[in-house]
């Protein structure tokens, strides 16, 4: 099968306009005859549900949480990019496009990224109109800051709660459609499978988390916006309920999974402090604008930070990357932190941390300025660690944060399973092998507000869709499979808890499929994951029943999928014999330990096809052509 991304013709800047013109339109009176199932209420899902509701479609929206507002997007801190060029510092759609392609280490589609940059401005307009309280300048106009390694200020923000404010905007819009009767909300529902009828996605199987009932919902198209799979690593900055289940089920039903090994490890997180640790907390990387990263020059130096004189500190990012300094992209920063710790220069009780020091900034700007900029982040840090970052330098360590991989989609955001659209972090998206800061929010909202309303219409208008009902045998069969899985999970009744097994899986992935990978480690990890999966089905213990709220059972189902999915991540990492972005294979590096891409052999998207049962999945390639951004080695020196 050849992967057709359906990139429209014509010059890059006109592709999207042209495509929108070419897409067929659904007659306004007919829109309400189409039932659309949207799974997820993060930025992507909520914005899609609201926009489709506004257009007049009949939308059913599902989420795991008790309220759509709790989706993981709520936690994004730093900001959202747009090419408004308000600060007059030389930004443009082209530059945002260029930076994103380059930042992604040339593993994203030019046409998609260009469209994203084009739409970015409309997102800001729309969010402001919704009442999102972005930061303002004294004159009342919108403020921007520089973020995530960008050399200009194009990031819009609402304190350290940008994701929350954007999500509440989208949630408000969604609630408005619920009140208007255009959207029906199904909270506390977990999608366990996608129903495929005659080759097309026509429904979902959901479990009502309150009473355990298995429900079937039919529709003309399914929109998955279920977020990323960072929780495969157990410890990550993702919310606890973030999972791969729906996406992985879709993969098993025929949607290809693209680049599963591309995970982003964020450099500035609060270090792990014990085995009971349940998740990691991100400290916004805006902190790197003013904080300086350092370690002691001598390995094993256990003196407290203020006793280490200036001459014995190594500001390694500033030293190695004089022009970007502390603001190098995430993958570069994380890898360097790991390298320092591997050399024994890590600090703190575990030796798995480096300092992020604000002393100079406080001396330069005064405490008041720093407090205004980062007050809530400092407070959060102090709450968690019990240490005051105004006095002692913060300690940070990298943590799994974002997954660039996801279900493969074409330019219309449709997967290889016809009628299944995938938005937000759940698709393999526009970030290539590495996502730049403040661009996930942009992408999620672009997908939901401004892309899916057009491309879904094009699909519905251009595809013959015979009526199906939930009584179709495909529904009963899919529901039965879901039910059987639940019975199996409950029946094992072994000796290990779900978290225990998940933690072990996480360690395997973190050690061998994390910041730095090598072929031997990956091979070992693959074998270990297979064993662990068997161990899981032999010895997991899920208390309670399937007939009421059972959080252990929910977790078990998600972890069971991670156990299978982890192997796909490893396979993909093994197959990609190069280093790029978040995927760093030790065999492919330059003399000064930078990632070395292999554009001859790997300038493509890898998309995996489920081959059924235990058979090896099939790897497909979608070649990437770079006509506008010349393929160069990224350099932040």
């Amino acid at each position, binding site marked *: 099968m050849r992967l057709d991304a359906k990139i429209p013709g014509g010059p890059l800047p006109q592709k999207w306009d042209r495509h929108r013109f070419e897409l067929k339109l659904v007659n306004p009176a007919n829109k309400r005859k189409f039932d659309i199932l949207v799974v997820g209420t993060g930025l992507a899902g909520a914005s899609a549900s609201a926009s489709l509701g506004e257009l007049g479609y009949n939308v059913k929206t599902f989420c795991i949480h008790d309220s759509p507002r*709790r989706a993981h997007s*709520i936690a994004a801190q730093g900001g959202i990019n747009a090419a408004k060029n308000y600060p007059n510092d030389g930004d443009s759609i082209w530059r945002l496009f260029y930076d994103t392609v380059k930042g992604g280490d040339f593993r994203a589609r030019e046409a998609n990224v260009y469209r994203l940059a084009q739409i970015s401005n409309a997102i800001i307009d729309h*969010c*402001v109109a919704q009442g999102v309280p972005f930061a303002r300048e004294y004159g009342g106009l919108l403020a921007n800051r520089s973020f995530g390694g960008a050399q200009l200020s194009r990031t819009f923000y609402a304190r350290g709660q940008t994701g929350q404010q954007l999500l509440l905007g989208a949630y*408000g819009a969604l609630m408005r459609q619920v009140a208007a009767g255009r959207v029906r909300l199904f909270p506390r529902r977990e999608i366990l499978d996608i129903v495929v009828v005659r080759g097309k996605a026509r429904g979902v199987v959901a479990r009502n988390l309150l009473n355990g009932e298995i429900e079937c919902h039919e529709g003309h198209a399914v929109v998955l916006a279920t977020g990323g799979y960072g929780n495969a690593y157990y410890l990550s900055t993702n919310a606890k309920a973030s999972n791969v289940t729906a996406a992985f089920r879709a993969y098993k039903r025929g949607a290809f999974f693209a680049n599963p090994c591309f995970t982003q490890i964020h450099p500035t997180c609060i270090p792990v*402090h*014990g085995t009971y640790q349940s998740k990691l907390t991100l400290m916004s990387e805006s902190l790197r604008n003013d904080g300086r990263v350092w370690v002691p020059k001598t390995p094993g130096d256990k003196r407290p930070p203020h006793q280490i004189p200036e001459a014995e500190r190594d500001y390694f990012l500033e030293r190695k990357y004089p022009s970007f300094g502390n603001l190098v992209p995430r993958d570069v920063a994380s890898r360097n932190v790991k390298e320092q710790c591997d050399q024994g220069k890590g600090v703190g009780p575990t030796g798995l941390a480096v300092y992020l020091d604000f002393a100079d900034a406080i001396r330069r700007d005064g405490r008041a300025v720093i407090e205004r900029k980062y007050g809530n982040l400092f407070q959060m840090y102090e709450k968690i660690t*019990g240490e005051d970052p105004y006095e002692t330098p913060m300690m940070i360590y990298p943590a799994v944060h974002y997954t660039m991989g996801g279900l493969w989609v074409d330019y219309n955001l449709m997967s290889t399973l016809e009628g299944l659209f995938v938005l937000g972090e759940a698709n393999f998206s526009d970030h290539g092998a590495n996502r730049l800061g403040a661009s996930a929010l942009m992408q999620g909202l672009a997908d939901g507000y401004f892309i899916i309303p057009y491309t879904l219409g094009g699909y519905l208008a251009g595809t013959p869709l015979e009526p199906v009902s939930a009584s179709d045998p495909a529904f009963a069969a899919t529901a039965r499979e879901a039910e059987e899985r639940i019975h199996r999970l409950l029946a094992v009744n072994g000796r290990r808890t779900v978290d225990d097994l998940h933690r072990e899986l996480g360690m395997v992935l973190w050690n061998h499929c994390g910041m730095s990978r090598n072929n031997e480690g990956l091979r070992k990890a693959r074998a270990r994951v297979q064993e662990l999966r068997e161990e899981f089905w032999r010895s997991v213990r899920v208390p309670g029943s399937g007939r009421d709220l059972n959080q252990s059972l929910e977790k078990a189902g998600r972890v069971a999928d991670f156990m299978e999915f982890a192997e796909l991540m490893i396979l993909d990492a093994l197959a990609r014999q190069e280093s790029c972005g978040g995927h760093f294979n030790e065999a492919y590096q330059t003399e000064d330990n930078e990632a070395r891409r292999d554009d001859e052999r790997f300038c493509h998207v890898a998309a995996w096809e489920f081959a059924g049962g235990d058979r090896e999945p099939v790897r497909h390639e979608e070649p990437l052509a770079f006509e506008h951004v010349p393929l160069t080695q990224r350099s932040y020196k």
Partner: protein
Amino acid sequence: MSQRIRLTLKIWRQKGPADPGHFETFAAEDISTDMSFLEMLDVVNEKLTLEGREPVAFDHDCREGICGSCGAVVNGRPHGHLRGTTLCQLHMRHFRDGDTIVIEPFRARAFPVIKDLVVDRSALDRLIQSGGFVSVNTGSAPEANTLPVPPDRAERAMDAAACIGCGACVAACPNASAMLFTSAKVSHLALLPQGRPEAARRVLSMVRAMDACGFGNCSNHRECEMTCPKEISIVHIARLNREALKAGFLSPER
């Protein structure tokens, strides 16, 4: 520095909405003071699971104080005794070795208990549905800088918009009133020019919804603002009152 402590927990157990429920006592041993409150509960739950008993159900997700999922009443205080902190951000270093901790669900007629510490807070969604938004369709927005907003106004709007919808204000209010939550949304949108066109309709409709959901009335007890993890102030309640007076007596809205 990190220490190990021992606690006695008295936790509300309730199988389902119809079950009358009761308190159960557990010993939590070897708890590190670096743990969060929820991590402490995780440890208890792991043990219960291995003993073949059902773990304590509680809502949680982000575990960093922003999603609003978590929350239980700890020794009489929703989210525990620390100011401006959600339960997931409350660390065990704020407890002492040997403490007894009573953990109950949020209590309000509008928040029926689902199981153990999990309550149904969908009433808060219904409040937002009744008008907690700006009616703007995708595509119709003007250029973002068309309407300047004085930064102090934007800041005050942000103060209100910071609400995470956890419902602790309701749980803490002696009257189980949702005034702080409702006023935070009314105030956020009333402060911004984008929210003004439907300000009158919004406040009247949200007050009606608040009453229909079965929340109590506000007697200005101020427990809510003292409990709110985002430290949302009752100035917003006053603004709701002002907006409602204006809307009720001076606008054409009914």
